[in-house]
């Protein structure tokens, strides 16, 4: 485990050192950005709508019953910005994109394609890891930025049409506007950026560590997804502590 952590940190450092080569690799970054957006956008939309919707469904009637219906919009607005959008989208991306990264790089490792790159003096970190890391670090915050208003809309929809809640769009968004500040959205974007780095580096490291045959690729994919999700949840706690401390 400690060896893995060390390897991940070294890989991350080498990727940071390769950042000046982003412009030269812009086509690969653009391709990865398109891949991430293409596979994720619809799922992000559905997930955001339903997460906020079910939150409204669970909490709305309880709040209304206690005469606190006016805070529902703000509560959903804040929870989408600060928690649900960054964490759920990160978990979604870990499952969809992290797994694909680990599988693709793992398969290249097993079938000696990575060795072939090395023999051609092509640094696998620059060729394989850098474009994926940059793309996911840009794409995840962008997806979260898209997810937040979609989630707000889902929450408002349920609040309006559920008879037990019965809070109209105007009241919902008025509560949301009075509670959510731009800093809260930035908070979620910052978290998602950090989660993206975690997913990218864990998945790429897992891919590059793959040894053996097709079964090893499967194991790497599973490890990449599970480790990414665990890391996201641990990071979430500590980032929340830090961000709350800063906001005080």
């Amino acid at each position: 485990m400690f060896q893995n952590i060390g390897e991940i940190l070294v890989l991350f450092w080498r990727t940071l050192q390769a950042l000046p080569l982003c412009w030269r690799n812009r086509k690969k970054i653009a391709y990865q950005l398109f891949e991430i957006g293409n596979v994720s956008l619809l799922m992000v939309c559905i997930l955001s709508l339903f997460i906020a919707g079910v939150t409204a469904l669970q909490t709305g009637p309880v709040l209304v019953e206690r005469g606190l219906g006016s805070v529902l919009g703000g509560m959903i607005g804040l929870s989408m910005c600060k928690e649900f959008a960054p964490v759920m989208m990160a978990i979604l991306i870990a499952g969809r994109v992290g797994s694909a990264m680990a599988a693709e790089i793992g398969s290249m490792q097993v079938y000696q394609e990575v060795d072939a790159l090395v023999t051609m003096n092509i640094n696998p970190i620059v060729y394989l890891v850098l474009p994926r890391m940059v793309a996911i670090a840009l794409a995840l915050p962008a997806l979260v930025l898209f997810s937040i208003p979609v989630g707000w809309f889902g929450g408002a929809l349920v609040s309006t049409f559920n008879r037990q809640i019965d809070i109209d769009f105007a009241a919902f968004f008025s509560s949301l506007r009075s509670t959510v500040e731009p800093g809260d959205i930035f908070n979620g974007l910052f978290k998602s950026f950090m989660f993206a780095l975690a997913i990218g580096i864990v998945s790429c490291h897992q891919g590059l560590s793959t040894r053996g045959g097709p079964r090893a690729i499967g194991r790497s994919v599973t490890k990449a997804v599970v480790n990414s999700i665990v890391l996201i949840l641990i990071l979430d706690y500590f980032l929340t502590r830090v961000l709350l401390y800063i906001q005080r």
Partner: protein
Amino acid sequence: MNDNSRQLENVSVEARNVYKSLGGLEVLRGVNFKVNPGEIFVIMGPSGSGKSVLLKHIIGLLTPDSGEILIQDELAGSRAAREKYRMAMVFQSAALLTSLSVGENVGLYLAECTDKKPDEIAAIVSQKLEAVGLKGLENRIPGELSGGMQKRVAIARALVMEPQLFLFDEPTAELDPPMAVTIDEEILKLKTRTHATSIIVTHDRTLAFSLADHVAMFADGQILFVGTPDEVKRHPDPRLQDFINAKPSISKPA
């Protein structure tokens, strides 16, 4: 970044007492040999004896547990060796990037490591593919090609680098006889045109004895004997003779 127009110099390769264990098994057990600049050095030996592992040490994909391999004056695998000398390897499995087209595979080194423009790269790619008999297949993907064709693409990809040291792992395996001859000729041309040093791991006795300046017989993780093809043919060691004169002993059914 390498510059293709750089003046090439011949490189020598020297292994000094190289040991390597993989998975608890001693694969290389004190390997010693010297390859002179510009020569074709063929390593022959039974399957599983560690020949490919030895090639991976020379190109720098593996490092010895003890001993050293020198490319001219630099340690194999060191940054200095990579920066000073251009080396290319043709893998036994071809190791083409399956997500790229044939043309992109062949032009990968030029696209990533040089400042050549796309049309220049396309011209070189076309020329190298023609050299291995695959002209016009630039847009195919490796999965659509046979094993032999993939091997030829891998050779074209290595040729593009104009290497000073060329390593081949079973270059003619899976090729039909005429194409094997074409590849032999290409290796010879490389020697005369660029004076590249070539190290070839093969079971192909025809290739070994027709191309090699020196042949090394490799078995049980060690070099048994190094000599010219004629010296190898005449050597009295039964292990050498068994390998180079192996013939099926089963008689044809009547």
